[in-house]
């Protein structure tokens, strides 16, 4: 059963069409890049998948189910911005995730925190921006979810942090789960991707395995992207 299926998915905000008849299938065990410029509909698609938005027309199914409480159990979402409650400590945050998500692996999270020398009793409000982002990533990746949604995970981070993030994604790989990475920074991320989806103005321009694109066109996905999207 596909982890994510979209059929004719459409979403409008007033007169603006954010998504226009989108068809997507993501099978388990794939790391997918959702690639497009800002305003292309990436974030709208992600919000429809994690239930922050309701669909307009068309259909979206996660593991065969409509977005709701049941699908939220198996979707692990990393938002673009840091959203952690200030007053909690890292340890309390893990307790929070453990409380609400049965698939949260506290030991794995604790291990990742200690490897980054982040103390469990450190308060989130005393952490630097970079540390907060890493903590948020750790919470998301420490879940044994069916679908991971990462919204611009490497935008605005230093190269070491970027490598840590990509490394974490690779080492958390699980053949029954899928990862969707939404980004406009393709060069850094393309080696990690199985499949790529190019999206522009709410429409899918291209959906293919990354290796096929590189093989058939003799160019990197990044270069192909720049060609497709030059305006």
């Amino acid at each position: 059963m596909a982890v994510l299926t979209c059929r004719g998915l459409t979403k409008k905000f007033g007169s603006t069409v954010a998504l226009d008849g989108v068809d997507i299938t993501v099978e388990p065990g794939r790391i997918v890049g959702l690639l497009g410029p800002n305003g292309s509909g990436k974030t709208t698609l992600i919000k429809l998948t994690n239930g922050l938005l309701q669909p307009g027309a068309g259909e979206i199914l996660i593991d065969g189910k409509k977005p709701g409480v049941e699908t939220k159990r198996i979707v692990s979402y990393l938002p673009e911005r840091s959203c952690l409650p200030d007053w909690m400590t890292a340890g309390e945050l893990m307790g929070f995730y453990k409380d609400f998500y049965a698939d949260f692996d506290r030991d794995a999270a604790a291990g990742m925190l200690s490897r980054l020398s982040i103390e469990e009793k450190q308060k989130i409000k005393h952490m630097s921006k970079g540390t907060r982002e890493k903590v948020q990533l750790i919470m998301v990746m420490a879940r044994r979810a069916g679908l991971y949604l990462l919204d611009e995970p490497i935008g605005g981070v230093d190269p070491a942090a970027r490598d840590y993030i990509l490394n974490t994604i690779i080492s958390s790989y699980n053949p029954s789960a899928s990862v969707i990475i939404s980004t406009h920074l393709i060069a850094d991320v393309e080696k990690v991707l199985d499949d790529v989806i190019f999206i522009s103005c709410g429409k899918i321009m291209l959906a293919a395995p990354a290796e096929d694109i590189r093989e058939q066109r003799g160019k990197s996905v990044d270069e192909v992207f720049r060609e497709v999207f030059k305006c």
Partner: protein
Amino acid sequence: MLGKLLKHELRATAHTMLPIFGVMLLVSALANVCARLMNGPGNTPVVLTIIFTLVVILFGVGLFAIGLVTVFIMVRRFRDNLLRDEGYIMHTLPVSVHAQIWSKVLVSSLWYAASSVIMVLSVLLVSWDVDTIMEIGNVAGRIIRAMTREDHVAEMIAEVLALLALGSLVTSLSFDAALSIGHAFAKNKMALSVLAFVGLLILGEVFTYYMASLAGDIGSLETFASLTFIKGWRVTCVAGAGLMLVMGGACYGITAFFLKRKLNLE
């Protein structure tokens, strides 16, 4: 899941509310001491008199403000946790929107009740004095004896408390509804929330007026006046509760709709 939300909500709000309550009680105790020192024997230096007076004034301000401060903190909690950045985490939790609303409403009502208790305790603390406590004890004793002697007094007190509790829930819900409406827009969220709140208040008034005139059509003032006191009281309670349930229900529905379908996190 509601249980877990409640636990989390209590933890998150307690570490703002408990210090505020603690400070209020402390200031009350200090005000008590200052008042005594000022009325003590001998002349107190001017500087100390000023300080003591300030503390007593602080107590007065605190007592007046503590209810408002609690409301302010609860309203801000709903907004910051569900309508701003934390919303990205809260609304992707595997919990229903109903559980989210109830967790906020129940916990705010709890703190409103708690702040009333703190106000009473503060008054007791500031007037802590053997004579005054004896006097309060006397009055309390008389009230309790009156309750057991007179019919219905205990029931009436219970009914008043129930109405207060219901009122507290409905007030919470009206704030939540207004915030949910205001934050569905892209700009001027808080201004629109205030506007929405005023709108809800007006609608509430209109509704109450309409219901009252309906009641006037059905019965008449004479019929009402002819009821026994307890019957009249009961009718008023039921009417009040009914109105609050309808308005509370409407606010709940509005909040649920806007949080589910019109959520507009940045």
